[in-house]
């Protein structure tokens, strides 16, 4: 029942909960937190990287049952020659059973398209770093009430099913980002492979990942107090990496019911059939580990970025605040009425404005000079 009803009931002299002796009631705390989370909603950013034509967009649309790319224009080969890697972010708000998720999918068209793909991922890395930088800036700022978290929480890396394992570009890219984002390798268009070919490819890819020291996202083991089903599910998920997926948004009639799939003369590939491909596993993994992916991004990747950044840029934040702080002053003097506080604040503001003006003047005088730090 709602909080308001609870209070009413209390007033009427009825307790809403049976008074068992010794019961304090802070066991309700998780529900208070829960209620707050529902009100706030969640944010999640997923990046997809892979060569054109590997089915990235179709897969994303299948995963979230939305059409994130309604007006898509696929450029021809001639246009692709000159193109560099773009970053396209689309945001969609999904609400299910009262829970709001603000999902941002960052697409990277142009990756691997050029004849010479030597430097095609610097744009991507710059994007990831930029989000970290923005978050650091917001977090160090004065007004922290509405910080938007656009950091990339997870990166699906699409591997072509046509080769015999990882390509050199795959290895190079994953090594360049594995310390900045959670990497989840995905074998695309898995319906080109037989079951045996698929298993062989998976094993090959895992070996190569090991060989090159690539750190992909590791699913945490199930806790000891989880139920058996969940433990089993976690075991199955861990054993299926990298996931071999097929995506489709078309509904096909098969065996008397409508399923999402791809219609071939020799049969129908069902997207949500675990015997046909790992789509369901990928979705389950993403959903049940969304929170963990965010946590690892915050506690590992972001903190690494932050400490590197602070060490590099001297002990200063981008606002010019000195870290560590000057020693705390003595407690406020006795007569601090509102007028005095206002005057003090105005004086401070003036001081800050003067300082900024001074700094700007100095920077102009110096020009490009040696004063520019990264």
């Amino acid at each position, binding site marked *: 029942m709602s909080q308001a009803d609870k209070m009413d009931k209390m007033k009427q002299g009825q307790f809403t909960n049976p008074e068992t002796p010794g019961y304090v009631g802070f066991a309700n705390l998780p529900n208070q937190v829960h209620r707050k989370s529902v009100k706030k909603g969640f944010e999640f950013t997923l990046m997809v990287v892979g060569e054109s034509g590997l089915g990235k967009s179709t897969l994303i649309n299948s995963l979230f049952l939305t059409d994130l790319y309604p007006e898509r224009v696929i450029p021809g080969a001639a246009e692709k020659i000159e193109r560099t890697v773009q970053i396209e972010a689309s945001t969609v708000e999904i609400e299910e059973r009262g*829970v709001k998720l603000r999902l941002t999918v960052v697409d990277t068209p142009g990756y691997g398209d050029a004849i010479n793909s030597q430097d095609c991922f610097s744009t991507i890395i710059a994007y990831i770093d930029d989000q970290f930088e923005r978050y650091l800036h917001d977090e160090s700022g004065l007004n*922290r009430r509405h910080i938007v978290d656009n950091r990339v929480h997870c990166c699906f890396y699409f591997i072509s099913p046509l080769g015999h394992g990882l390509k050199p570009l795959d290895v190079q890219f994953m090594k360049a980002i594995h310390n900045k984002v959670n990497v989840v390798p995905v074998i695309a268009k898995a319906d080109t492979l037989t079951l045996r070919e698929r298993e062989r490819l998976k094993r090959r890819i895992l070996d190569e990942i090991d060989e090159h020291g690539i750190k992909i996202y590791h699913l945490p083991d199930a806790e000891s107090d989880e139920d058996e089903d969940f433990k089993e599910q976690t075991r199955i998920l861990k054993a299926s990496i990298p996931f071999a997926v097929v995506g489709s948004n078309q509904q096909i009639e098969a065996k008397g019911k409508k399923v999402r799939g791809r219609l071939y003369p020799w049969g129908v590939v069902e997207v949500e059939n675990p015997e046909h491909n790992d789509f369901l596993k990928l979705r389950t993994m993403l959903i049940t580990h969304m929170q963990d992916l965010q946590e690892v991004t915050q506690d590992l990747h972001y903190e690494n970025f932050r400490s590197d950044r602070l060490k590099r840029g*001297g002990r200063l934040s981008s606002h010019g605040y000195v870290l560590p*702080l000057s020693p705390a002053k003595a407690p406020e003097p006795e007569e601090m009425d509102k007028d005095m506080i206002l005057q003090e604040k105005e004086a401070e503001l003036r001081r*800050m404005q003067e300082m900024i003006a001074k700094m700007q003047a100095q920077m102009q005088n110096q020009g490009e000079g040696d004063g520019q730090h990264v």
Partner: protein
Amino acid sequence: LSSGSEVSLSHSNMSESAKPHHPSPQGKGEKSHGGDFSYVGIDAILEQMRRKAMKQGFELNLMVVGQSGLGKSTLMNTLFKSKVSRNKSVQSNPEERIPKTVEIKSISHDIEEKGVRMKLTVIDTPGFGDQINNENCWQPIMKFINDQYEAYLQEEININRKKRIPDSRVHCCIYFIPPTGHCLRPLDVEFMRRLSKVVNIVPVIAKADTLTLEERDSFKQTIREELRANGIDVYPQKEFDEDAEDRMINDKIREMIPFAVVGSDQEYQVNGKRLLGRKTKWGTIEVENIAHCEFAYLRDLLIRTHMQNIKDITGSIHYETYRVRRLNESNGHLESLLGSLPVKRATVFW
């Protein structure tokens, strides 16, 4: 939240154990739903957050302020149904018992209920208001509160910081008003006026069994008026109500504060049940009976319904105010340094 979903999220059903269940996106096992194309399963994230919160446990830091003899320690023990307050030896010399200055004594306990673990810290302030001259007796308390904010800030701006910053900030300060029945004393006004700017204050009328119901109501009314007249914003503060639902709930609470409480750690037999109370010749005062006193409302507010909100206000309002002030102070300090440095060095900034 709408009910009637196949996935049951635990709401306020206390008797449910804390064992988690996992709403898997497509139901148990790997079978795909026949015709359900529209359910992705993102509400599973709530359960994940819940698990994380349960695993980490919670921290709560409560401060009690009031003259000695107002039943602060007993009330804490009653709230948490265990001896969480400082040890008080009944036989000690009265001169020993009242300290010469205000002391700050923190005692922490790890308590657990239905799988939810909490580190409860009770901060006692013996000596407050007990001297002949009580001027500035709030200063050690202000300093303590600000010191906790400072400690948290230092951790937060560290280059290599801890995954979970230990939270020693005072979430709530319970201020004990003696049951005079008349009005607030100058000390009460001074203290609450200053402290309400840096911490959540919940005023309570102590030892309320000395007041009849009429006396209690008129006393409360006087107190509320005096708080208003002096611009003292106690918890729940009107300006921090998030939405209409919050405002409605909090308005009801604001009509009832300060809660008139009675504490006790003694159990008595009343109508065949064992209850906490105070036994007198003319009757037994039942602590948890809302017809007798408002302890239950205080407990529900602090623990059962508003605990998370109290912590949120501390973190997102009081602490942030402190942080902004410190950052600006630092900048002012820096500026004075700047003035004395040669021009070139100053271009180190962005």
